[in-house]
């Protein structure tokens, strides 16, 4: 019962904190509106027009199919790159040899522009969904990898010695000593990955003409349907906000609750 109440309290606070976020977004919308009034609807449709266009888009079955397609691709790319990158990073963090071998490889992979991967993937996979997924994976895998690696490499060895002195096995040490520390390295990496997964998917779809929101965007551009372009952009941003603040942040908030304890206002229970 107390646990449920504590959870509800946390949920209420989390939702309430959305007001601050909304205030920031409305500032941005105001700047947008100013731009619109300066340059007119053809160059920059107003937020209101865009919102109406989004509402109309949601009613279109084609749009829903395209959005689902993009969501699936970026979701798959996100999951693959996070799973592979994080586990490889953790493994590399435990081994100095692996760390030394992998670091330059990561730098090289990060140095290749995503657009180059799209071209390569187009040649390998053709104009299909695989292109988008591969681009997302390759573009964002190194971020999770570096996060996992740094997190493990900077784990608290004094706490590890403590755990060892109580006979904690390898897995228990990973779970109780390393993992909570890793979280603060992995979540920024995962947030970046989630954000770039949407962007890169749309970009890959646009360039490979593989349907999805990117394909939609390409045809809207061809038709000079500017409100549709901004509406699609807004939709993608909405998806990115959703992944960040509905899927990732709450999880992080729950896992990092202990950090509140060290802050001047103390832990909130």
């Amino acid at each position, binding site marked *: 019962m107390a646990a449920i109440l504590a959870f509800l309290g946390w949920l209420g606070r989390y939702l309430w904190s959305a007001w601050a976020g909304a205030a920031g977004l409305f500032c941005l919308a105001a700047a947008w509106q100013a731009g619109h009034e300066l340059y007119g609807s053809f160059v920059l449709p107003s937020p209101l027009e865009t919102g109406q266009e989004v509402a109309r888009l949601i009613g279109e079955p084609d749009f829903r199919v395209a959005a689902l397609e993009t969501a699936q691709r970026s979701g798959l790319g996100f999951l693959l790159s996070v799973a592979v990158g994080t586990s490889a990073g953790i493994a590399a963090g435990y081994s100095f040899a692996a760390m030394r071998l992998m670091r330059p490889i990561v730098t090289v992979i990060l140095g290749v522009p995503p657009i180059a991967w799209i071209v390569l993937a187009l040649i390998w996979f053709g104009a299909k969904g695989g292109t988008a997924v591969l681009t997302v994976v390759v573009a964002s895998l190194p971020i999770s990898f570096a996060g996992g690696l740094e997190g493990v490499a900077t784990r608290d060895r004094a*706490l590890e*010695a403590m755990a060892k*002195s109580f006979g*904690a*096995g390898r897995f*228990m040490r990973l779970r*109780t000593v390393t993992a909570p520390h890793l979280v603060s390295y992995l979540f920024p990496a995962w947030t970046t990955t989630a954000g770039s997964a949407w962007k890169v998917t749309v970009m890959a779809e646009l360039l490979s003409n593989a349907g999805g929101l990117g394909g939609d965007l390409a045809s809207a551009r061809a038709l000079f349907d500017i409100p549709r372009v901004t509406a699609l952009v807004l939709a993608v941003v909405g998806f990115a906000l959703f992944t960040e603040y509905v899927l990732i942040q709450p999880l992080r908030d729950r896992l990092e609750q202990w950090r509140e304890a*060290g802050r001047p206002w103390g832990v909130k229970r």
Partner: protein
Amino acid sequence: MRLALERIGHAFLGRAVFENLTLRLDAGEVLALVGPSGCGKTTALQIAAGLVDPLRGRVRREYRRHAVVFQEPRLLPWQRTRDNIAYGLAARGIGREERHAIAAARAAEVGLHPRDLDKYPAELSGGMRQRAAVARALAVDPEVVFFDEPFTAVDVGLRRVLQDLVITASAREKFAALFVTHDLSEAARLAHRILVMSGRDGSIRVDRTIAGTPGARDDRAIFEMVQGWMHEAAFAELFDPDRDRA
């Protein structure tokens, strides 16, 4: 006999810490290991506790469970005090209910308020954290406890309280303890026997049983004992101002 180090040699990056260290810890005995900073007493403790593998020599352990109280509390910042105290029990695979009950009992023994059990280490004072660390060690019912200068960072009054805690716990639970410290009066208060390690080659200079039982010695006796030691040649190295210039 609970623990014996036999002809242990260890070196860090080729620099020898000690060549030939032999010591023995009997059941129920509190053994104070004293020495100047950097003489290798912490290394000796880590070898005894199995945290470091010695280069040479043999460690004989005749007990089932040990626990270590480190210089810093080393509590997990992301676990509440209750789970921190129960950590050793969790490592042994004891169920949640049972280990929380044991943790609560041990916390009471070391003077933690039940309210403190729900707090994170960041919310506890330094003394409270060290109390929790002691409770965590006692919670596993150890036969040997290793103390690595555990009370150096707390104030004088609290240090006494924590020492008394160790004295009563060892009298009650009959565990053997290896207590590393650089404070002679701390050794004189709580140990049955004192070993003095040399800073030059890590050899044992003094091995002496301290008269009386820990906890029963009064402050005057302890003061006079430490004063007496200060004038002995074997202890001289601890007070040598030039020892770093070797």
